[in-house]
């Protein structure tokens, strides 16, 4: 590595194995979130996408209690929650937020109970923090095969049902007139969302899960109206923000003595900045066009 890059890439960045895992897993998760998130934004299900990350906490903390990997608890809980949301009316635009809110409230109540038991009945005092904030630098490499399977399932569902999903997201009436099973496609999409959010929440934490699901996709959809293109741009923005965030977090060990700044702070700030810059410049361009 040329010496001129030393201030950017702190010594040891490329040889540290937690950094390798963080870059690979973070990159994969960000790409999956971008692909799945494009439809989350188009379908107006950002609240559901965010809620699943919190709802999974109930499953994750229950998994801690019985001593299995939180990932399985997360997925099981999220699939159940997605099913209940579908049942009580996430399809109707007016009932969407309410259905999500009711399920979220009940699940957070369960999470309060399980986390309470986690801290009183066992010695895992760190369970709350671990489940809520997860850390990209503390990933066990045994999770890698599971992450691969989940990524394939989530992106597989979205890509296989791409055309009917796109049509039913843009216009449910037109889709059902053309014989698309709109409800089935919607359920399939919720499963993909539940799997993708479980994956991201367990590996990189609930905060980053929502940030990477919604931020890059919303930015991409401001830049292009074509869904396929938006998915590619969203994945690219997500991966760039994650890698840059990991780099900055690694470098930050030298900024303040004793400890580094959290990765989630950097990634969220980058995602937010990407969106804001795009929003302002696209808005200004549109304003200029209108004047002409």
């Amino acid at each position: 590595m040329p010496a001129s890059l030393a201030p950017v890439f702190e010594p040891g960045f490329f040889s540290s194995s937690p950094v390798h895992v963080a870059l690979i897993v973070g990159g994969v998760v960000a790409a999956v979130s971008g692909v799945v998130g494009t439809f989350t934004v188009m379908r107006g299900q950002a609240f559901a996408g965010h809620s699943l990350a919190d709802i999974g906490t109930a499953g994750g903390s229950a998994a801690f209690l019985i001593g299995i990997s939180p990932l399985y608890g997360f997925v099981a809980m999220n699939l159940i929650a997605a099913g209940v949301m579908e049942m009580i009316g996430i399809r109707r635009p007016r009932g969407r937020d309410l259905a999500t809110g009711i399920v979220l409230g009940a699940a957070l109540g369960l999470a309060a109970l399980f986390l309470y038991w986690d801290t009183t009945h066992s010695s895992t005092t760190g369970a709350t923090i671990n489940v809520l904030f997860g850390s990209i630098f503390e990933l066990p490499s045994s999770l890698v095969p599971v992450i691969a399977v989940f990524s394939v399932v989530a992106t597989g569902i979205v890509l296989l049902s791409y055309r009917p999903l796109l049509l039913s997201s843009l216009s449910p009436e037109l889709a059902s007139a053309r014989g698309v099973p709109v409800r089935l496609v919607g359920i399939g999409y919720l499963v993909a969302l539940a799997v993708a959010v479980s994956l991201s929440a367990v590996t990189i934490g609930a905060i980053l899960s929502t940030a990477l699901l919604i931020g890059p996709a919303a930015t991409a959809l401001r830049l292009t109206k074509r869904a396929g293109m938006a998915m590619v741009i969203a994945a690219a923005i997500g991966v760039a923000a994650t890698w840059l965030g990991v780099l900055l977090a690694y470098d930050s060990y030298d900024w303040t003595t004793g400890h580094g700044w959290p990765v989630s702070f950097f990634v969220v700030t980058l995602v937010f900045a990407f969106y804001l810059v795009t929003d302002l410049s696209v808005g200004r361009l549109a304003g200029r066009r209108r004047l002409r």
Partner: protein
Amino acid sequence: MFSGFMINAWEAATIVAVVAGVVGFFTVLRGSAFAAHALPNGAFAGAAGASLIGVNVIVGLGVFALLGALTIGGLGRRARQDVATALAIVMMLGLGALFLSMTTEYAPEIYSLLFGEVLGVSSSELLPTAAIGVVCIAVVFALYRPLLLSSVMPDAAEARGVSTQGMDLAFLIVIALATTMAVPVVGSLLIFSLLIGPPAAARSFTDTPPKAMGLSVVFALGTVWAAIAFSYVSNLPIGFFVGAISAFSYAAGRTWVAGRRTRPVPTDAVH
């Protein structure tokens, strides 16, 4: 159950339930469930920041809740509200993660900010809670008519000169006030459940706005009182009971509506 330190818990929970019942009626009517989740949850970053620089937690909560409301309102002008809300909550939580990494707060402290510690409310915390609660309810009643009109018929409201965007922002600020009032005493989870569950259940039983609002306050009071009693007897966290009772009352409301629909009713009476 009604002795000494428990009195503060009953009083705090009663104030919070009345405010949540009133504000929650509009939250459900306007479909603002995401904002009602995002502001209390994200404002917790403000509490973490306040303890970092050594100011009162309520100040930190208030500043962050207000900034969050303005961010959602500002971004929501050009994007969908749910996207704006998602971006606002992750930015607030990201800052929260940064503040937490800099403090030496121990895990149980964070747990109590998120899930509340209603049994540990002190008398000095009651006064600000009550004061902000009164302001919050006063704002809702002052804006009652335009708020109702813009929630139910946005087009008619615009025609009468009521700005939809203005009402959106005003209501976000009301949620921010409710957040500041409730989070220090009951935590962000509990205030969210109370803003959604009881009002949603109340709406199943009546369509008249004032009745629905009154019923929503009654349900919210019933929910917190029962939750405190159960929590006291069983020693389990109060948040669990509030979540469970809210979900059950919503399910009961839905069942009641479904039961009524099976009877022969003129089609125009069913919406």
